[in-house]
């Protein structure tokens, strides 16, 4: 893996922030985008843009084909069975809302249980909370241990005959925990409970194989996978998409419209109402190509090395405390420094050009569980280097100096 050639594909990485070279360690928030993706966006708009699926002139035909090519790439990328199982949304949050809403409409009655975990991002909790409010569902939180791992035994115990769906993250955006989804799906299968996986953090960092995982639903945000903003993906098994009611209603998702009755389009159009983020979907094909050109195994290897390097270096700094110590950890490293609030850390390292995130990272439940108000988080992308981590660690040392910690 040629890291210099990879970095050269990200123009923003050579920018200066506060007079210092940018060190971007906020990829869990959103990744930067490589040139082939940006060029695709620009080329498409300048040469090929048209609305898709509606008109039958040459521009529209070509744009529609390009759009559908991405659908096939995504299908292959996550090893789905067919392209009808790939729905384009605006972000993973919408993907999860789509399932929570339609599944809720079809299957959730008063007293039914929804099982999630203490690791979940708000986007994988609030949509289920709505079912609590509107349908009287009960939400159970599978507990984690102090390492940030889900306690599988407790998880099993929380499943009852009333559990209607399980929703769980594949990779925590705070502790970096890689959740054993296969194990969870196997447990759920025995009780015939569908499983939704929040794959926001996993998609850019580990190999996704929905056939192997055998999960029912999988949600992805393209902007975290080296893709443009404005697109998300919902994978769902065909049997579900056929059975569930439609979500947003409007142009493109109908078949026949009468004054008293409406029939809906077949898959995947049934779930794609209104004009899609056409250019963004077309460009996302390039994001997949970017990852494939490096090779997902190489990405994993590089990021693992860097994660270990970061953990070792951070642990050597006095009063730094790493949040969580999961069995399998990806490059999401949250930490605190005794005596310095994460916001102050972020401001001080920013002065050195280092972009990290501070706060609750949309995981208030998890922070409460860990007795923390906020954490600082460095998160790794394929373009990061040991030098980036060195700059981060020096900047953290500067925090300690400013705050006169010993």
């Amino acid at each position, binding site marked *: 893996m040629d890291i210099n050639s990879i970095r050269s594909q990200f123009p923003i990485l050579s920018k200066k922030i506060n007079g210092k070279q940018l060190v971007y360690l906020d990829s869990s928030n959103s990744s930067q985008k490589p040139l082939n993706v940006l060029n695709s966006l620009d080329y498409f708009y300048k040469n090929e843009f048209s609305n898709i*699926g*509606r008109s*039958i002139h040459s521009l*529209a*035909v070509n744009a529609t*084909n390009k759009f559908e090519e991405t659908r096939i790439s995504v299908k292959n990328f996550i090893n789905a069975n067919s392209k009808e199982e790939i729905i384009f949304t605006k972000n993973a949050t919408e993907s999860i809302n789509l399932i929570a809403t339609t599944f809720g409409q079809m299957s959730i009655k008063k007293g039914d249980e929804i099982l999630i975990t203490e690791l979940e991002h708000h986007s994988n909790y609030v949509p289920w909370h709505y079912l609590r409010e509107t349908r009287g569902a009960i939400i159970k939180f599978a507990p984690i241990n102090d390492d940030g791992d889900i306690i599988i035994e407790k998880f099993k115990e929380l499943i009852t005959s009333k559990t209607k769906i399980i929703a769980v993250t594949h990779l925590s955006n705070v502790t970096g925990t890689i959740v054993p989804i296969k194990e969870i799906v196997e447990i759920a299968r025995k009780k015939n409970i569908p499983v939704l996986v929040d794959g926001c953090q996993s998609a850019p960092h580990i190999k996704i194989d929905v056939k192997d995982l055998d999960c029912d639903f999988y949600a992805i945000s393209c902007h975290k996978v080296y893709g443009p903003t404005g697109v998300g993906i919902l994978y769902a098994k065909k049997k579900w998409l056929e059975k569930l009611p439609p979500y947003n209603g409007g142009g493109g998702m*109908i*078949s*026949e419209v009468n004054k008293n009755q409406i029939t809906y*389009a*077949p*898959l995947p*159009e049934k779930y794609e109402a209104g004009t899609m983020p056409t250019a963004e979907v077309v460009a996302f094909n390039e994001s997949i190509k970017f990852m494939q050109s490096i090779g997902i195994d190489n990405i994993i290897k590089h990021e693992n090395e860097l994660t270990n390097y970061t953990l070792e270096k951070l642990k050597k700094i006095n009063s730094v405390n790493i949040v969580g110590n999961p069995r399998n950890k990806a490059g999401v490293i949250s930490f605190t420094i005794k005596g310095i609030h994460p916001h102050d850390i972020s401001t001080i390292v920013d002065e050195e050009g280092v972009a990290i995130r501070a706060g609750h990272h949309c995981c208030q439940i998890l922070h409460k569980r860990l007795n923390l108000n906020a954490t600082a988080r460095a998160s790794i992308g394929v373009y990061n280097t040991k030098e980036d981590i060195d700059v981060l660690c020096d900047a953290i040392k500067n925090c300690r100096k400013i705050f006169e910690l010993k």
Partner: protein
Amino acid sequence: MDLKQLYQDIILEHGKSPRNFGICNEYTHEAKGHNPLCGDQVEVYLKLNKESKVENLTFKGSGCAISIASTSIMTELVKGKSIEKAKKLVVDFLNMIKNGTIIKSDELDEDQKTKMMSLSGVKQYPMRVKCATLAWHTLTSAMEGNKEKVNTEVLD
């Protein structure tokens, strides 16, 4: 591409004066087809006799020249054929439209082959393929006794 290739005289002629239009008496099978993109509709009425031969085949519906001509030509070519041979003709037709395969069927005389081949120009116009194939898919649906309306969006 030359438009005259797509809009051959035979197609324009069938488009304007479709054969076998209407609902035939005592039909034994029927099916409906729909192209949501343009709103085109087709209904196919099929009368199979005791020997499983297509005794009559008619249609109703509205659509573009390509779609009406393709349906009209289909009814002409399929009428009188056994159900097996009808099914083979559908396969041949779809192969021609999608893969450009040349029609070599023994079941058709030269004149009939020319008729069928008159639709081969559609291959060059991807968005029009569904116009040409809707009727043929709907015929399959009728022969197989399917209840659901054929929807071009689920066909490839």
